[in-house]
């Protein structure tokens, strides 16, 4: 930057904007967790509209300008469509708990593995690459469609896109770090009808992505500590699990909010859950699912090699039961638990059969 000259010239200055500020005299104070988003939800700045007519990208609480361009084209304009009670908390948590796949994973602990185990790990890493792609692409697509009046929820989705980028990168790194390579893609996350990609409604997408999809993947990541062959893999899976649990929390808390604030949508949501449940074990999107070839890889990793496949398969059944049980409890937490008692859901049957 070059040095500014000092001139005596006087310029005209239109300061009419000074008289058109939003609510004035706001003095948010840092709390024990710093100055979080929750701390600045004060006065008019904390007032969330049930339905917003903000189509100009105006920050919530700023003064509207009548001649501003309507550039937003926002499709998500109802609070119940996107909101969740703990959005500020989840966003701050995501910021606080970022990690680096380059420097926080002890890559030096990786040692050459038997070929069958290396192939199984690489297949899983290839699969997780695809999964992370969809989990990054799809929330990103909804961000620009959502009114900035609900920016806290939108910020959580942005943090998720960041997390998924890191997951994609850590699994690619693992696949290429130990004498293996990427394997054949699964194609499981493609644009089939009823898939995460094609959802036309945010809650529909969130039900598929956050609750059934990422819920199942969360269990897998947690299992990474059992199937990890070294500290690098164990840590990689554990840190991914923490991130994934935040994404799942978004889905559960959003569904809970919708259930409480838009009860007329319950029958529709039940249909989304029907579709998701039909895919949990039978579809290809769950790496531990009955149709997925990654299940074979998991059995090898959990058993400790092809020679112990049967033992690994038994552990795989434990995973499946965990996935189903946790899914049921999450849906129950979101306010849709009745479906497991009134015979609508097939999950209790699937759970009983998963032995």
């Amino acid at each position, binding site marked *: 930057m070059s040095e500014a000259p000092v001139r005596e010239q006087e310029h005209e200055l239109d300061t009419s904007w000074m008289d058109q500020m939003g609510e004035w005299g706001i003095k948010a104070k840092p709390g024990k967790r710093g100055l979080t988003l929750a701390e600045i939800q004060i006065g008019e700045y904390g007032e969330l509209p049930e339905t917003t007519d903000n189509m100009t990208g105006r920050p919530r609480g700023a003064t509207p300008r009548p001649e501003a361009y309507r550039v937003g084209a926002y499709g998500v304009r109802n609070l119940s469509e996107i909101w969740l009670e703990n959005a500020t908390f989840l966003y701050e*948590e995501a910021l*606080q708990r970022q990690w*680096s796949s380059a420097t926080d994973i002890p890559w030096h602990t990786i040692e050459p593995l038997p070929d069958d185990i290396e192939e199984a790990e690489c297949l899983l890493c290839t699969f997780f690459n695809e999964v992370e792609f969809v989990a990054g692409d799809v929330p990103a697509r909804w961000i620009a469609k959502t009114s900035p009046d609900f920016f806290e929820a939108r910020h959580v989705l942005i943090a998720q896109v960041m997390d998924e980028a890191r997951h994609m990168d850590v699994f690619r790194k693992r696949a290429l770090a130990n004498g293996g390579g990427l394997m054949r893609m699964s194609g499981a996350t493609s644009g089939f009808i009823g898939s995460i990609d094609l959802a036309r409604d945010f809650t529909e997408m969130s039900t598929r992505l956050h609750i059934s999809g990422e819920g199942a993947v969360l269990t897998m990541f947690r299992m990474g500590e*059992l199937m990890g062959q070294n500290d690098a893999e164990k*840590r990689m899976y554990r840190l991914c699990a*923490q991130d994934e649990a935040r994404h799942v929390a978004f889905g*559960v808390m959003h569904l809970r909010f919708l259930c409480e604030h838009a009860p007329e949508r319950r029958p529709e949501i039940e249909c989304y859950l029907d579709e998701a449940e039909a895919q949990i074990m039978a579809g290809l999107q769950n790496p531990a699912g009955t149709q997925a070839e990654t299940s074979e890889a998991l059995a090898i990793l959990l058993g400790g090699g092809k020679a112990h496949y049967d033992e690994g398969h038994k552990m795989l059944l434990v995973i499946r039961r965990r996935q189903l049980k946790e899914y049921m409890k999450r849906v*129950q*937490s979101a306010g849709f638990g009745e479906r497991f008692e009134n015979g609508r859901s097939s999950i209790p049957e699937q759970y009983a059969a998963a032995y």
Partner: protein
Amino acid sequence: MARFPSEAWFKEVQEVYNSDSSLHTGGGGACETTAAFKVGDECYRIVFEGHQCLEIRSASEAELASPETDFIIEMAPELWKAMVENIQEHGAAHDDQTLNSIDLRQDDSIAYSPEDDQARQDLFYRFNQNFQDFFDASSRVETTFD
């Protein structure tokens, strides 16, 4: 030398954890939760705030069951003991002795929400690294067992 389990032992671990900033990074960043440990009949309440373990103390069962508690980690005393011994031996939980690994080997989770709310039980997963780092810090506490 502190005895496991005891309030004195947990407080020594708290001191180590809070004083070592290397335990507050790399996935174990700021953490906000109130949880509890049950070791046989003994109960302890733990509060994490930011990068600090703010409180660890003995508590009653009734207190553990209060709505304030996000989740409780409950294991048989011999499992707790095996985990702590493993940490003492290796400097950090080794092989299948991490909290997550122990949990996965049980048919039912060792962590549960007293209100049976999975969203709060999921905090065990969201903050798993902090709890692991906390117990790994116990490798620096001279420990005896009953």
